[in-house]
């Protein structure tokens, strides 16, 4: 007999899911004018979780008006009081952390270990961090009299639903802006639970408004004349569309977009920790991470040894029920995303790369993709250039540091990169030459509210987190 882990599911009892959710406008839950709804499912079981209100243009209009009303109260409030509201929200999020974690796992498909240990605690931490900024804005680096933009339209993705909400809402509120936020179509539930938290915290009506819907709802926010700034996280293609839409307007714009991060491993790397970093870089959150280390650049003289270790480590990855506390890799968020991953991986096969997948048992229902890497990948392969947004790694070898840098930078993206070596001067040399906004040296996929995050080149505009991210919500002297 061997040591098999019995199933250890987190209880769903802590969560109450309503059959139908309304829009959160002006501090109240209101039905959409058109009365339309869409459904959100659990991607691990394909079960319908709830019906969600579909916001049309007129609903967005109503939300913007409510935000304008909210702004009057919020922007005039003593900054220290604004900060205290954020502290209050952070505390409530901590108190209800397990509820958020279970709900996020059910709606998104990501493992409970990640929602419990990363998504939810980091979300609360973002509110704590920004709460402290509210009465110190004159030190934010944009001059002595910084002003909020006004009403900020925020559109967030499905990969870290609550965390991306926190990244957006916390700095916006700390700086005195009010918010109209649209969560992703497939993952609206934790945003709607957050709306309840806003009520519980007695946040003034209209300061946070949450409208659920699809791309058309998002477009209505982007194009609304009453919105003063757009903050978007999502695909590079949509980011470019938004940039074109706001051209010629006074709207501010920050974008967090795609990536094709290079994870560079030199011969003197701490190999076991490097393997952890590679696994964390590409298989964390099913690879649904814009800053994923999706290109492994490995020095040719250690490639075999490293890949042997990686294969062995991948055999330990536990794929399955996201609510099981021992699950490492959960469900792909949607059928559509699964099809995209599958299609790109097949292109790897047909373009001549060699596939290795961990031997996972794929559950009968739901959307799943096994942890996979391709060797024999060159810069010309689609899987080396396009963002897969799934648990698929492309392995590319290099011979010299210069070659590593050239290959790493040879992409229109520039969000993240990793470097693994025991040599301090080589770390700094590599970090200096990488054209990427976040560089993890001897670590990967670390996030913190105090640490600015964002990309070079086509990976985005501006930063989120830290002083730099805060400044993106303030207008100062230019």
């Amino acid at each position: 007999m061997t040591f098999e882990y019995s199933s250890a599911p987190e209880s769903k009892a802590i969560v109450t899911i309503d059959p139908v959710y309304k829009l959160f406008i002006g501090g109240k839950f209101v039905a959409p004018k058109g009365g339309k709804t869409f459904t959100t499912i659990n991607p691990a079981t394909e079960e319908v979780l709830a019906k969600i209100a579909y916001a049309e243009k007129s609903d967005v209009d109503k939300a913007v008006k409510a935000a304008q009303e909210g702004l009057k109260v919020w922007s005039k409030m003593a900054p220290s009081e604004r900060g205290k509201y954020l502290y209050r929200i952070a505390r409530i999020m901590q108190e209800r952390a397990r509820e958020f974690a279970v709900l996020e796992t059910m709606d998104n498909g990501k493992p409970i270990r990640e929602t419990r240990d990363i998504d939810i605690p980091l979300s609360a931490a973002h509110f704590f961090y920004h709460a402290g900024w509210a009465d110190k804005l004159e030190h934010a680096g944009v001059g002595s009299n910084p002003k909020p933009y006004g009403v900020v339209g925020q559109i967030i993705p499905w990969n870290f639903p609550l965390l991306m909400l926190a990244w957006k809402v916390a700095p916006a509120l700390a700086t005195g802006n009010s918010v109209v936020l649209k969560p992703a179509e497939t993952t609206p539930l934790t945003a709607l639970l957050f709306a309840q938290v806003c009520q519980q915290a007695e946040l003034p009506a209209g300061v946070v408004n949450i409208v659920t819907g699809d791309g058309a709802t998002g477009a209505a926010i982007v194009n609304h004349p009453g919105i003063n700034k757009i903050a978007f996280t999502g695909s590079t293609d949509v980011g470019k569309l938004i940039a074109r839409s706001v051209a010629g307007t006074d709207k501010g714009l920050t974008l967090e977009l795609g990536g094709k991060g290079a994870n560079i491993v030199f011969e003197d790397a701490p190999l076991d920790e490097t393997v952890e970093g590679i696994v964390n870089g590409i298989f964390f959150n099913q690879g649904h991470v814009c800053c994923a280390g999706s290109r492994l650049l490995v020095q040719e003289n250690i490639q075999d040894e490293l890949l042997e270790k990686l294969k062995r480590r991948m055999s330990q990855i536990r794929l399955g029920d996201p609510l099981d506390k021992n699950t490492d890799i959960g469900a792909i968020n949607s059928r559509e995303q699964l099809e995209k991953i599958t299609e790109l991986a097949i292109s790897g096969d047909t373009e001549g790369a060699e596939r290795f997948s961990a031997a996972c048992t794929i559950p009968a229902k739901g959307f799943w993709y096994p942890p996979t890497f391709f060797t024999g990948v060159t810069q010309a392969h689609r899987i080396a250039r396009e963002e897969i947004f799934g648990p698929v790694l492309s392995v590319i070898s290099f011979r010299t540091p210069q070659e590593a840098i050239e290959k790493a930078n040879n992409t229109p993206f520039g969000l993240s990169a990793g470097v693994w070596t025991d040599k301090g001067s080589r770390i700094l040399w590599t970090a200096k030459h990488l054209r990427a906004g976040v560089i993890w040296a001897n670590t990967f996929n670390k996030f913190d509210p105090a640490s600015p995050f964002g990309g070079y080149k086509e990976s985005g505009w501006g930063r989120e987190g830290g002083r730099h991210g805060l400044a993106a919500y303030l207008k100062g002297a230019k």
Partner: protein
Amino acid sequence: MVTTAGALTDGSLSSIKGFLKTLSPVDQVGADARAAMLATRSIKTASKKWAIDMAISMIDLTTLEGADTDGKVKAICNKAIRPDPTDPSVPHVGAICVYNDMVSVARKHLDESGGHDIPVAAVSTAFPSGRASLEVKERDTKDAIANGATEIDMVIDRGAFLSGDLEKVFSEIVYIKSLCGDKAHLKVILETGELVTYDNVRKASFLAMAAGADFIKTSTGKVAPAATAPVVLVMLEAVRDFHQMTGVRIGVKPAGGIRTTKDAIKQLVLVKETAGDEWLNPELFRIGASALLNDLLMQRQKLTSGHYGGANYVTLD
């Protein structure tokens, strides 16, 4: 592939240094993070029952006190054979671990009480500090073997290791191993709490394995920190990599500070997900402990009976 451990180094300082240089370094923060992540594994129901029994069978039930007496040693021997007198399905422990002069007492009592198959391990080579001449260490080891010890837990010379005299550390292990011959297994205690860095732990692990250790052991139990999860992780990585290099599987023995069922199960998770299932048996993994056994027994009773027990429902020794 190198096929014998002896071929990894000829024992000269330059050769040892050259060999250790081929090892990849360890990043402390990354190793800590990996160990912490594995500590979140949730082991329930059937897997917990399996783990408890496996952990019991891996215990080197230990008493290493100046106040040890024949009576005390006999008592733990009884406990080793029948950990829970009310439940014969409980397996016996992996070994008894005592000071040199208690070996014959333990061996005799085990043999007389139905514990023939439980080996006696002796801490040897001027345990715990190792601060004695090689002659003394030799005598210590020979004595233990002559009295019936089939496992020798030796300490390395940490002073020599830290001062760079790797040749001395290596040659002592080689020599003690030669005394063990086929009569005793050799466990080499690194005393990781004195080596401090994980890089040192990894190097000392390989040094010991190349010199002929059958087991590498974290600690004497007399120095804190002892068997922390990341240290055990690093040592498990070392035995795994050594097996890759040589085809030889070396055992690992954490000792010191493992007191609860939760601690023990975390160790088994570390073994499973680092070295692999092949190491999940008493031939390749031991836990040096004393108080742990009763906590395992209490948890076992809880699983069997469905309610929580108390300290008075397991025997003191």
